[in-house]
C-alpha cells in the first residue's frame, strides 16, 4: 500500500526498568489510513501505542531507544514540547473516561487548556466534534447534563469527540471497544470508518474480526516483537509466516 508516511518508528526499543518490553519495532503509518495492532495480551502493542504520544513518560523507570518520528519531528527529541505533541497525537482509552463534568465541558476542555477563549468558537467546535463522533443527535438537548449519565457506548463516543475537538493529526485508540456491548462496538467501528479519510488512526485491538473490519493495514505483535506487517486483506488471507497464521486462525494466543 502506498501513501504519505505520517508517523514512523525505527528500531524502537522500550524498557520498564531492566525488562525489555519492545524489541526493534519499525513501522511506517500511512496518512489517513487505519492501522491495527493485534497480538495476544502482554505482547507490547499497548506499550508501543503509548510510546507514540509519550504517555509512557508517566511511568517511572522507563527507557526508550531508537527513533519515533511524527512527520519530520523526532518524538523523543529532548527539545520537543510533549504537551503540544500530545495535542497533535490524540488518544482514546480502553475504558470510557469522561470527566465528571457536563457533556459540553468535556468537549470544551481540550480547547480551553489549549488557550481557546472565544465562546462562539468553542460552541461551534463542540457541536462539530460531537457530530463527527456521531453522538450529536443523542446529546444535543442535554449538553449541560453530566457526562457520567451517558451509557458506556455513548461515553466512549463522547471521549472520541473530546479527542477530536483539539484537531489531532493522529488518533491512537487503545482497545476502544473492549468494554462495550456489540451494538456500541459496531457504532465505534462505523465511526472509525467515517473518520479515516481525514485522520491517521492507529488502533490496538484484541478482536481480530474488528481489525479485519476497520483497518487498512495490520501489524501482528508477539512477545514484544513485530512479527508481520501487511495490508489487512493480505495479512488475514495469505499471512507470510506460520506464527501469524496460527494466531489469526485461533490456534494459539
Amino acid at each position: 500500500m502506498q501513501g504519505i508516511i505520517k508517523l514512523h518508528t525505527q528500531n524502537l526499543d522500550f524498557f520498564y526498568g531492566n525488562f525489555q518490553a519492545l524489541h526493534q519495532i519499525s513501522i511506517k503509518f500511512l496518512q489517513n489510513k487505519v492501522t491495527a495492532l493485534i497480538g495476544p495480551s502482554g505482547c507490547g502493542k499497548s506499550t508501543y501505542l503509548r510510546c507514540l504520544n509519550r504517555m509512557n513518560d508517566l511511568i517511572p523507570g522507563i527507557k526508550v531507544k531508537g527513533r519515533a518520528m511524527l512527520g519530520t519531528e523526532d518524538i523523543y527529541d529532548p527539545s520537543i514540547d510533549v504537551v503540544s505533541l500530545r495535542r497533535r497525537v490524540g488518544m482514546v482509552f480502553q475504558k470510557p473516561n469522561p470527566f465528571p463534568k457536563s457533556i459540553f465541558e468535556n468537549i470544551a476542555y481540550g480547547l480551553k487548556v489549549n488557550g481557546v477563549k472565544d465562546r462562539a468558537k468553542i460552541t461551534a467546535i463542540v457541536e462539530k466534534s460531537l457530530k463527527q463522533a456521531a453522538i450529536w443527535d443523542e446529546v444535543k438537548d442535554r449538553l449541560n447534563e453530566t457526562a457520567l449519565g451517558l451509557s458506556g457506548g455513548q461515553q466512549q463516543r463522547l471521549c472520541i469527540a473530546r479527542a477530536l475537538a483539539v484537531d489531532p493529526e493522529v488518533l491512537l485508540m487503545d482497545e476502544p471497544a473492549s468494554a462495550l456491548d456489540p451494538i456500541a462496538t459496531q457504532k465505534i467501528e462505523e465511526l472509525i470508518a467515517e473518520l479515516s479519510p481525514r485522520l491517521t488512526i492507529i488502533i490496538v485491538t484484541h478482536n481480530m474480526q474488528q481489525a479485519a473490519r476497520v483497518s487498512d493495514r495490520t501489524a501482528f505483535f508477539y512477545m514484544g516483537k513485530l512479527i508481520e506487517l501487511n495490508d489487512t486483506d493480505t495479512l488475514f488471507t495469505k499471512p507470510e509466516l506460520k506464527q501469524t497464521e496460527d494466531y489469526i486462525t485461533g490456534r494459539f494466543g
Partner: protein
Amino acid sequence: MKQKMMIKKRLVLQKIWFSAFRLAVLINGAALCVMVYFILSRGFRAISWEFISQAPRDSMTAGGILPCIVGTICLCLMTLFVALPIGVASAIYLNEYATQGKLVRFIRLGINNLAGVPSIVFGLFGLAFFCIVFKMGVSIASGGLTLGIMTLPVIIGASEEALRAVPNTYREASLAMGATQWQTIKNVVLPTAFPGIITGSILGISRAAGETAPIMYTGAVFFTPDLPSSILDEVMALPYHIYVLATAGTQIEATRHLQYGTALVLIVLVFGMNFFAIILRSKMRKKMRI
C-alpha cells in the same frame, strides 16, 4: 455424624466471633449515647438565650458564654485559614508531583510523626515560637497558627486520600489532550477530589475546636468580657472555659451547671460542623454524580 458435628462447630464459632464484633460496636455507640445524655441532662438547665448572648458576670458564676463561642469560632477560622492552603498544597505536591522515593517517604514519616506529637507540646511550642519569638502574644493569630500546625497532618492525610481516589484515567485523558500537568491538577484532579478534601478538613478543624492544651498558652485567656476586634486580640474559648470553671474558680460547685452548659454548647458546635461536612460532601458528590 462426625461431619455434622464439624459443621455445627464451625457455625457456633462464627456466631461467637460475630457476637464479639457486634458487642464492640454496641460499646462504641453506648459510650457516645451515655456521654451525650450525661452532658445534655446536666447542661440543659443552663441553656438560655442569655447564656449564649451575654458575657460572664459576677466572677463567671453567672451570665453567658458569648465571648467563648465567638473566640472558639475565631480560632477555628484562623486554623482553617492556616492549615487548609498549606495542607492541600502539601498533599498535591506529595501525591501528584513529587517523584515517589526516599525523600517523599521521609517527608511522609515526618508528617505522621507530627500527628503523634502531644497537644501540650504544640501549646508550648506555640507559646515559645509565635507568642514570644514572633511577638504575637496571646492572640487568635498565635492560637490559630498553633492549632493549624497541629491540624496539618489530618488535612494532608484527608487530601491525599481524596487525591488518590481520583481515577488515573482522568489524568491520562487530560494529558492526552495536550493539557499540562498543572492544568490537569487544577481542572480535573482537584475538582474531583474537592468534596473529600473539604470534608476531611472540616472534620480536622472540628477536632481542633475542642482542644484545650494548644490554646491555653497561645490564644485563650481566663477571662475577657470583650469580643475580639483583630486577630492580635486574645479570646476566651469554650474548652478552656470549661477547664477554668471546673478547676480554677473559687466556686467550682456553684458553677457546675455552667460547666455542663458550656460543654453542651461545644459538643453542639462540633457535631454541627461534622454534620455540615457530611451534608456538604453528599451534596457535592450528587452534583458530580461520583
